């Protein structure tokens, strides 16, 4: 089969609230190739997690997908009946969440709850399921996995629990795993171990990853392409090295410049003025314009995406292309 594994086209997700309709994801389009790691970056409220949930059809009513399409290997997922979505989740696309303590059932043994994920999709014997569980746990770096199948989640550390969550996602050999800030709650030393393992896993198993994060440094050492979201829209996309070394959108540039690593110690950091807009009262035109130093009258109109090669951005006044 040719073509990308996942194509998201014009995806829009809305949540009605008492104060009005929140369009958390606005006409988001991107694709994921088989075996690729795609970084999805944005601040809280930018719509990055809702994008992940929308792909899996995990938007709880009254929220709903109001437009666009999500096609996995050519098959449309938006509008699928709940039964078909359930059959797809875990088997074709799996998800790893931020908080491993909330993902695992505290009263079930690790081996038993992971086996449930296998039995949900195919008929296998208990012994075979147990063997497969032990195998994946070993794959994610849990030592002596066969003996720890009977442990409960509370007997595992935070890092080990996140490994269990990742192992569960791998159980049915999905084509795509959506990871929503999977290392944010972990210490740096554990984060480094898990990043190393995820990279090896993606390479060895050919699983594609969407890595949702607010941390540019983490994404830069993992992903090959990056998508930057702001106020529900994709504002920049491209190969990660190109985007991070020469961002075209002023917001991406601002994010990079505000990192302490970019500044001289003790000197003021470059800062983006203001705060992200309320999703209930988005400014007309470009949502970033009120905080943007390059904004002018043209920015009152919504910018359309500009495409150049494999890069894409949404800005009336992008930063210049680097002269090479």
């Amino acid at each position: 089969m040719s073509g990308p594994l996942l194509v998201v086209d014009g995806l829009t997700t809305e949540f009605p609230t008492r104060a009005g309709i929140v369009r958390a994801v606005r006409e988001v389009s991107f694709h994921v190739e088989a075996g690729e790691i795609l970084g999805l970056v944005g601040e809280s409220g930018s719509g990055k997690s809702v994008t992940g949930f929308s792909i899996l059809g995990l938007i709880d009513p009254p929220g709903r997908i109001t437009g666009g399409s999500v096609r996995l290997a050519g098959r449309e997922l938006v509008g699928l009946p709940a039964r078909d979505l359930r059959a797809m989740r875990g088997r074709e696309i799996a998800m790893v969440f931020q908080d491993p303590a909330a993902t695992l059932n505290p009263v079930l043994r690790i081996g038993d709850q992971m086996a449930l994920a296998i039995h949900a999709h195919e008929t296998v014997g208990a012994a075979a399921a147990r063997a497969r569980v032990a195998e994946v746990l070993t794959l994610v770096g849990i030592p002596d996995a066969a003996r720890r199948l009977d442990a409960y989640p509370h007997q595992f550390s935070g890092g080990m629990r996140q490994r269990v969550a990742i192992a569960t996602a791998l159980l049915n050999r999905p084509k795509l795993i959506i990871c929503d800030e999977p290392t944010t709650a972990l210490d740096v030393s554990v984060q480094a171990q898990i990043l190393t393992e995820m990279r090896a896993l993606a390479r060895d198993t050919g699983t594609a990853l969407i890595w949702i994060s607010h941390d540019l440094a983490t994404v830069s050492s993992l992903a090959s392409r990056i998508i930057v979201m702001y106020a529900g829209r994709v504002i920049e996309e491209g190969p990660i090295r190109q985007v991070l070394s020469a961002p075209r959108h002023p917001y991406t540039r601002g994010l990079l410049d505000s990192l302490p690593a970019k500044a001289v110690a003790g000197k003021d950091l470059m800062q983006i003025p203001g705060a992200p807009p309320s999703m209930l009262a988005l400014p007309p035109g470009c949502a970033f314009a009120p905080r943007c130093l390059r904004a002018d009258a043209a920015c009152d109109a919504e910018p359309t995406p500009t495409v150049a090669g494999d890069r894409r951005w949404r800005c009336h006044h992008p930063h210049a292309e680097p002269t090479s």
Partner: protein
Amino acid sequence: MSPAIVEVRNVSRRFAPTPSIGERIAGLFGAYVENRTVHAVDRVSLDIASGEVLGLVGESGCGKSTLGRVIAGIHPPSDGEAFIHGEPVMGGQRRRVKTTTRVQMIFQDPFGSLDPRFRIGATIAEGPIAHGLIRRAEARAEVARWLSAVGLPADAADRFPHQFSGGQRQRIAIARALAMQPDILVCDEPVASLDVSIQAQIINLFLKLRRELNLTMLFISHDLGVIRHICDRVAIMYLGRIVELGRTEDIYTRPAHHYTRALLDSVPKLVTTGDDLVSFRPISGELPSPLAPPPGCHFHLRCPAADARCRSEAPDLRDLADGRRAACHHPLIDDRT
């Protein structure tokens, strides 16, 4: 160097759950009762000089917040004492209470640290009025002064916390602490819960306040990038003990303790060029449980240089070259010559 404002002398802080009635009876009959005492802070000594920003770094459970709370007079130490200007932070005999207003604290969560039913003005003025630092009639002007110092309009005083964003609330928490005119500010992960673009604004605010008010700060964080940016000196903690202490630039460029080096190596860096993705190197193994720390050097299970001595004998924090101190039998830099 300026004289020390804060002196921490041999401070330990233990937390032990009250034994249940069953355990107490079992204990009376000589049965084995599991020891569940956590040594959150284990014999720590350090000084903070006037006008200095000292960073306190470590992973979760290393005791950095507990140490900060001992210095801020929230937890009494189990052993040892913390002093500010030579006076103990905690007074009282049987029930120990904080007896100074010279130290104030800023917490991580700006949503939990402000009373939702108090107007901002009341939140900021409450402490100074209660302690007689200002009179009620002066409160409004005083509140406006501190709000403007943290970059908020004076009319913020009449609003409630829910009307502010996370970054603005952290500014309010800073104004509240400053209104007590402390000599030292203990900041416990003050930017950890903020978005990147807002984080930079708050860091810049700390830098500005420091310049204008000659603030002395203990800055607790797990974020090595933030610490490097604003601290003069850094203390690295591991399982309740300080393992390394020194000037920020020295520690980042030439760490002396193997844990410090491993920690620095495990942080992903922003990679903008090249195909080589490897920007970090993980530490092997897991953080041991603080309920049962390993004997000897706490880090020996994960340390590449550990030998028999490290497994049995806990290293003391000792002086190395360039005013550096490290608790390691086999430090990565030379001993004092």
